[in-house]
């Protein structure tokens, strides 16, 4: 089966640091792929590379087999790649609703009328409905994370890149989040999820990648990867619960 989104030989250097150092990665239609790895492993940088936040130092990114390496972030979003940011980046001067609506119109190519209903639906789904008319700048961290997810969903993605969206949630909130992501998966959305909270991640993913120092350390069935000696070693000091 052809990968929906893939990267071959991906390298991203910041000065002398190779934050992503020769990564091959692929996610298939409808699949949920997990990514774990210690802080600084290059996970977030990998998302930036896939979403087109910056130019790559080397490598090729493909969507449905066609190279999209040269496309800017906005075009990639229009083609169906959506990401959340690990540190939320809301549009502070817009309301919560407007944050989501602008994504629905720009990335999702919805017209004005359709975008209102879609945005409202997504706000309900992500638990932000009651805050719709609040300025995004007034939100706390957890609601800002919800807004990241809501905004990404509003762009009508085919593949959703989630970056540590579960951090800081209570168990009950985590349960809701897992249910929401499973629901999205059931709708056919392809998911790549970077997460430290393994028990939540493992409820969702079909396959797991472990990164360390810019490289893929291990890849495969979640339980196999978690049992890998190298993976355990990489996680020492950043205990996976």
């Amino acid at each position: 089966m052809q990968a929906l989104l893939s990267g071959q030989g991906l390298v991203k250097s910041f000065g002398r640091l190779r934050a992503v150092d020769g990564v091959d990665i692929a996610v298939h239609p409808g699949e949920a792929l997990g990514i774990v790895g210690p802080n600084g492993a290059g996970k977030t940088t990998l998302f930036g590379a896939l979403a087109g936040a910056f130019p790559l130092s080397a490598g090729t990114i493909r969507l449905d087999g066609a190279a999209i390496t040269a496309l800017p972030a906005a075009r990639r979003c229009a083609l169906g790649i959506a990401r959340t940011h690990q540190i939320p980046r809301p549009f502070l001067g817009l309301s919560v609703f407007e944050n989501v609506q602008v994504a629905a119109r720009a990335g999702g190519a919805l017209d004005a009328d359709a975008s209102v209903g879609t945005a409202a639906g997504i706000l309900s789904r992500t638990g932000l409905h009651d805050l719709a008319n609040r300025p995004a700048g007034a939100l706390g961290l957890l609601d800002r994370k919800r807004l990241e997810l809501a905004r990404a969903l509003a762009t009508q993605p085919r593949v959703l890149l989630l970056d540590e969206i579960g951090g800081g949630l209570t168990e009950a909130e985590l349960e809701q989040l897992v249910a929401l992501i499973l629901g999205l998966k059931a709708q056919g959305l392809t998911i790549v999820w970077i997460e430290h909270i393994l028990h939540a991640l493992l409820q969702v993913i079909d396959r797991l990648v472990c990164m360390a120092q810019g490289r893929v350390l291990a890849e495969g069935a979640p339980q196999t990867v978690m049992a890998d000696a190298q993976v355990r070693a990489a996680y020492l000091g950043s205990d996976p619960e």
Partner: protein
Amino acid sequence: MTEPHLLPMPKGDRRLILSAGALLILLALLPLVAPAQAIDKLTQLGIYVLLAVMWNLLAGYAGLVSVGQQAFVGLGGYAMVRLVEAGLGPFPALVLAPFLVALVAWPLAWFVLRLRLGEFAIAMWVIAEVFRGLVMFDPLVQGETGTSVLALNAIDADTRRLAIYLLSLVAASAALAGSFVLLRGRLGAEAQAIRDDEEAAASVGVSTFRVKRLIFVAAAAGCALAGTLWLASAITFQPRTGFGIQWTVFMLFMVLTGGLGTFLGPVVGAVLLMGLQEAFGDFGAWYLFGVGALSVAFALALPGGLVGLWSARRGREPLSMRRRLSAGEG
């Protein structure tokens, strides 16, 4: 429960718009009764409102802080001089010149909009100086001396005054109405998203360059129109004045005191500037310095300007760009 929908514009805002419409009609009829001097002042006010709306569009809604908008004010005047020289009537030239300036701004956008915030601001100032230098080479302009649009003198003074007044009134109202519609639509939301976080805006599909270029070019044309209106009332074009930094000082002052990123801020700021000019305008360089200092003071002490203060007291901004969803509190 009904389908989620956008709430209609608040009653207060609708009343404001109706009053603005009524005011516009009164202003259009004013020349029938008002003395020439008052008409001249109001012409100037219209030009100030136009300039302030443009700078607010750039800095307040798109995050494009330019200290070189005089580049387009001056270029507008110069383009009008050249068009008249080429045989066009002064009023057609006045209207056409901003379109020519837009043609210059379009490719320029490609260079300057790639720059980061501070670099963009400075680059615009450098560009204004370069334009001024180039225009001074034109033998028609004769360096510092400048040139006059003598064709304007051929028109009877009262007719000319009335025409320029009405044009300035139309220009200011069109800038206000146009930006209101623009900002409340998709483009406005996208511009504000870019202002708040350009990278995040791109990540949700906003074509950041396209949006910024549109606003940049529109603001260039608006500033050029202010330049041609100014020239039409002053008759003489001098590079030092046309491309003068005072335009930017005025724009900064009006937008910062009125309220950066508020719709009514530029109007309030323009009225305030006219008032200051009436009181202290004779103090020359000191006046300009005072206006600058006051802008800085406002930026530091009252970042939302006077409209921000008003909104804080009232609990909401008059003629706000925020679109509210039917359900949900807050």
